[in-house]
């Protein structure tokens, strides 16, 4: 049995017939070919597969594609706008917030949620905000530094207006 799903991903409408058991992360990776969302565990512990569903950071391995029907999803591929990095992406680059890069998409999308909920999150709050994301390379220090640094970066609005001008 297959069920139809329609999901907006990074601003584009997508639709497909999927098995009810298909995980959202596999819909993104295998059906749409958006392989920036990584799978690091089977138990929703590592956070590598984090995406934004209707603006909320969610581990896409805990959601069935059919549950995401009708939602609006942002993956790591959809974060940069008009060739310009999102301030959090830029901060990860500037502050060496990644090594092997595998956990990075999940870290960056979780960071958007941390800063959305608490735009002035301090180091302590950022560390606790990363509770659901595991990194084996960095010891977290530069990830935390990147997220704190991203707060003082250029707001995304300015980049949007640039888009309007173009």
């Amino acid at each position, binding site marked *: 049995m297959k069920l139809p799903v329609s999901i907006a991903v990074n601003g584009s409408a997508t639709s497909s017939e999927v098995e009810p058991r298909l995980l959202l992360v596999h819909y993104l990776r295998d059906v749409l070919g958006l392989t920036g969302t990584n799978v690091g565990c089977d138990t929703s512990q590592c956070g590598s597969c984090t995406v934004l569903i209707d603006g909320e950071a969610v581990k896409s391995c805990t959601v069935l594609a059919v549950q995401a029907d009708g939602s609006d999803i942002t993956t790591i591929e959809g974060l940069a706008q008009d060739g310009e990095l999102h301030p959090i992406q830029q901060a990860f*680059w500037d502050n*060496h917030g990644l090594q092997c890069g595998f956990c990075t998409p999940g870290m960056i999308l979780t960071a958007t949620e941390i800063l959305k909920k608490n735009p002035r999150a301090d180091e302590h709050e950022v*560390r606790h905000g*990363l509770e659901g994301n595991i990194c084996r390379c960095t010891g977290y*220090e530069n990830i935390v530094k990147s997220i704190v640094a991203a707060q003082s970066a250029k707001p995304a609005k300015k980049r949007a207006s640039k888009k309007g001008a173009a």
Partner: protein
Amino acid sequence: MGYVGSSVKRVEDPRFIQGKGAYVANIELPKMVYLAVKRSPYGHAKITKINTKKAKAHPGVVAVFTGQDLIDSGVGVMPCGWNVPDIQIPVRQALTVDKARHVGDGIAVVAAEHPYIAADAVELIDVSYEPLPAVVDARKTTDVGVPQIHDNVAENTSFEWSLGDKEACDKAFSEADHIVDLELTNQRLIANAMEPRACVAQWNHATEEMTVWTTSQNPQPIRLLLSAFTLGIPENRLRVISPDVGGGFGSKIFHYPEEVITPWIAREINRPAKWVATRSESSVTDSQGRDHITLARMALKKDGEISGVHVSTWANMGGYLSTFAPLIPTAFYITLFAGLYKMKGVWGEVFGTITNTVPVDAYRGAGRPEASYVIERLVDVAAHELGMDPVELRRKNFIGKDEFPYQTPVALQYDSGDYHAIFDKATSIANYTKMRSDQDEARSSGRLVGVGVSGCIEASGPAPSAVAGALGSAVGFWESGVVRVHPSGKVTVLTGSHSHGQGHETTFAQIIADELGIDMGDIEVVHGDTGRIPFGMGTYGSRSAAVGGSALVKSAEKVREKLKKIAAHQLEASVEDMVYDQKEGKVYVKGSPDKAKPFGELAFAAYSAHNLPEGLEPGLDETSFYDPANFTFPNSAHIAQVEIDPETGEVDIQRYIAVDDVGNVINPMLVEAQIQGGIAQGAGQALWEQGVYDENGQLLTASLMEYAMPRAHAFPRFEIGRVETPSPHNPLGVKGAGEMGTIASTVCIANAVMDALAPLGIRHLDMPLTPEKIWNAISAVGQRTTAKVEYFGGD
């Protein structure tokens, strides 16, 4: 150009932060089949029957194979690449046929049209088992009633190995004023790189060429092993690619069964094949780390002079010998027992035993953290028992900075160091005296505050190849490096090293930019593809900069020499009078810098070949194979301050200070990050992580629900300092930087926790120092006695 020594931002990052990382699991090919492996749920069991009928009939299943199918087609046994004398090497098939020897041992494989179908069909394979008694404890493998796991490994002991001056060791103990005895467990760890292992293979039916993409730290040796031992496809028809790899920490060095099975199936059914491990599958198949049981003794004089150590270790090798397994508890372990100290009577022995657990091999630090744990726990307990400050006891025994090169009694010759300087810096950053007086104050109000110290040595970048061969290695430990200058002056750098997070695309470009005096942006670094790069040895043992970087320096030297010849010819001067200006990237006659020939012009001249000196070949493409003269010897002084909550037993790391000497530094930002990541990983072993097996060999920590990985909130900001004593024997003066954080932090934090518990009379607890373990120890003291206990209090 001044790139080396500066914190250049990584050139590889834009693809990772935008989700464009090229990991093996992302590869999709037309007509691909997806593999799933049937694995043993038993630690030890005889396989009496395998029925694949239902699985084969399942819709969407393309084929099902067993180990016998592989054997019948000539697939060879998994090789062991390190052979110590008199070793008994168990037979390991890519898929086992007779017995399962650990949970996760592969038995059959399904190829299907979709990964979900493959997973479904695996459940339909019916395997009949006769469960056998199991052994999981390294020291119990010879006990009465324990079955022999492999027919050819008597008493489940694969090898015995010893090193050191036994006579000097015995003398040290017979003349000792004080002897410290410790029984230590260095627990089993699971590497848990965030990217699970994966393999993709494509067979070209027409040309009979195979391409294998695999999550490896060293694709060239994997190609060799696939060709010469397991799969049997000639090396010149086999291309192995390790594209972006999501962390390794040692676990992706080894040749794994799935690297054999996947290309074998791709050829067998003439369709591309893909296998991606689940995390739980990684837990029961990735080679694991550590797992030593050790009886250790240290001999001291009254004044704190360390005169000897005597160590016996039972090293758990798991159910088979993984690719480099015998190396880790032998030549990477006992050779480090001299530590930073001048002691003469050093002797150690190890028993490599086979158990019904997942195979054990190199894991970040690989033998050296185990050695540091033994020596630095002994030193710490000695300081407590002699009533000396642990920093002072260490300082009393340091090898002096003028004593290098220093020959230890356990084979190694240390290259350079200044151990007092690293401790000066660490104690200064920590404000150690105040840290101790604050601790006294906290203790007087009943708080459990501990200060831990470690001083560690590492032998990184194993070398030279001839010595490795004499010690049992089947391979050499050199590295290849190509500097290919194109006619336009752009440069491609090919390295046999492999980056799986280290940032070689940046650091190696920094090196070559400075060597040739060109812009970093004109350089592209290529690694991880046997179709593009010469044979090389890959990345492990903190060897990439020291060995791979040095190979590139040698090739850049050759490029400079050739360009000097061309410039000399064109400027009508002798080659001896030519100056290569590495700042500006130009060549001129000594004294006439105004008439210089720029790099780009000379590169084009090398290819146009219109005006070359007689006899000089056109082209500008230089290759070097660099075999280092020695290991490099990074060293460190780490200090941790912890506080234990007596109500919960929870350890709070309040401060962590790390001063490391990794020789010259190419990119300080990247080196610091290696140390930071290492500290967290080592802390994980000290406080939380453990691969736990029950008595039947069942792995109880096979997912990240049970295996406690370090998380962000558990750490303070690390305080990091650096001392640079360049390695004298490689052209960059660098030492390994990848593993010291892990080597030093595990024992540093363990020492801090034990220091915190010392007032309660608790002398030693084995890692991981979990809240439960600490709480139980505190509670036992409370019930046992209220008698006065003496401890070192810093006064």
